[in-house]
């Protein structure tokens, strides 16, 4: 049952990811990317990582996609649609793809040899995934968590400084 749903969501993710890179209309690509994020979130749910699934939908399908659409709006789409697509990096892409495939095969071989099924993201039981994540975040990883806020602050100030110049002009 779990396997059936895994293959369903995995197939959905792969198919929508293929559509992301094969559509001509950039806006359609972006929408298929949202679909891919949703399928990946479903796989996270299957792995019992509910919090990660929620964040995947909230931050990736919500916020990161806003940034992608912005990049799409910043380039002039009607002009880019006229450009002929080329495959100049075909050989490099093939080599890197093979390398990645070998790596994934190696990892798969490793997990097949070990008598373990799908690894659960966190100890499930009385405590939920969100709770165990929170305990780790607010006790063991407290300092990295506070540093994240500084990182976000730096991103915010950087964006304002960069965009302000354009606005004042």
């Amino acid at each position, binding site marked *: *049952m*779990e396997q059936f*749903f895994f293959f369903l969501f995995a197939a959905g993710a792969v198919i929508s990811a293929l559509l992301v890179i094969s559509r001509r209309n950039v806006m359609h690509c972006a929408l298929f990317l949202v679909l891919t994020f949703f399928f990946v979130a479903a796989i996270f*749910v*299957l792995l*019992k990582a509910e*919090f990660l699934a*929620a*964040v995947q939908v*909230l*931050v990736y399908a*919500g*916020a*990161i996609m*806003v*940034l992608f659409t*912005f990049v799409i*709006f*910043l*380039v*002039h*789409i*009607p002009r880019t649609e006229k450009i002929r697509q080329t495959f100049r990096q075909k050989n490099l892409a093939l080599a890197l793809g093979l390398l990645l495939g070998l790596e994934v095969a190696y990892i798969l071989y490793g997990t097949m040899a070990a008598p373990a099924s799908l690894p659960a993201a966190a100890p*499930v039981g009385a405590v*939920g995934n*969100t*709770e165990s*994540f*929170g*305990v780790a*975040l*607010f006790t063991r990883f*407290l300092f990295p*968590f*506070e540093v*994240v*806020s*500084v990182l*976000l*602050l730096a*991103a*915010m*100030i950087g*964006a*304002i400084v960069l*965009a*302000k110049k*354009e*606005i004042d002009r």
Partner: protein
Amino acid sequence: MEVFLRGYSALGPYVPVFLFIVVAVTFGIVTLFIAKLVRPHRPYPEKLSPYECGVPPLMEARERFFIRFYIIAILFVLFDVEAAFLYPWAVLYGKLGLYGFIEMMIFIGILLVGYFYAWRKGALDWVKEG
């Protein structure tokens, strides 16, 4: 329903969610398909032109956007990430107590500096003053 829940108890709460999505998507597809079968199909240029409140379209809709939207978008992304951290904190609030409260206040405080910076710099004003 019970058949789904048996032997699949860990993900039980998500079965209704999955069924909801399946029904919603199927409803949309079936409705469009039936409408396509039933409706007459007689297109002409006026009917196919995009409707803009009755005014003739001025230019291509897919133009480059004003940079001011970009600041709003990036501020949204950053505060969205902050909000994502608030969920586990809210779940654990009872356990963490004062310690957790101070932790989160420091986190929000640092981000508030950025918010006030954006405010003071006028990044949130839509029309430039002065």
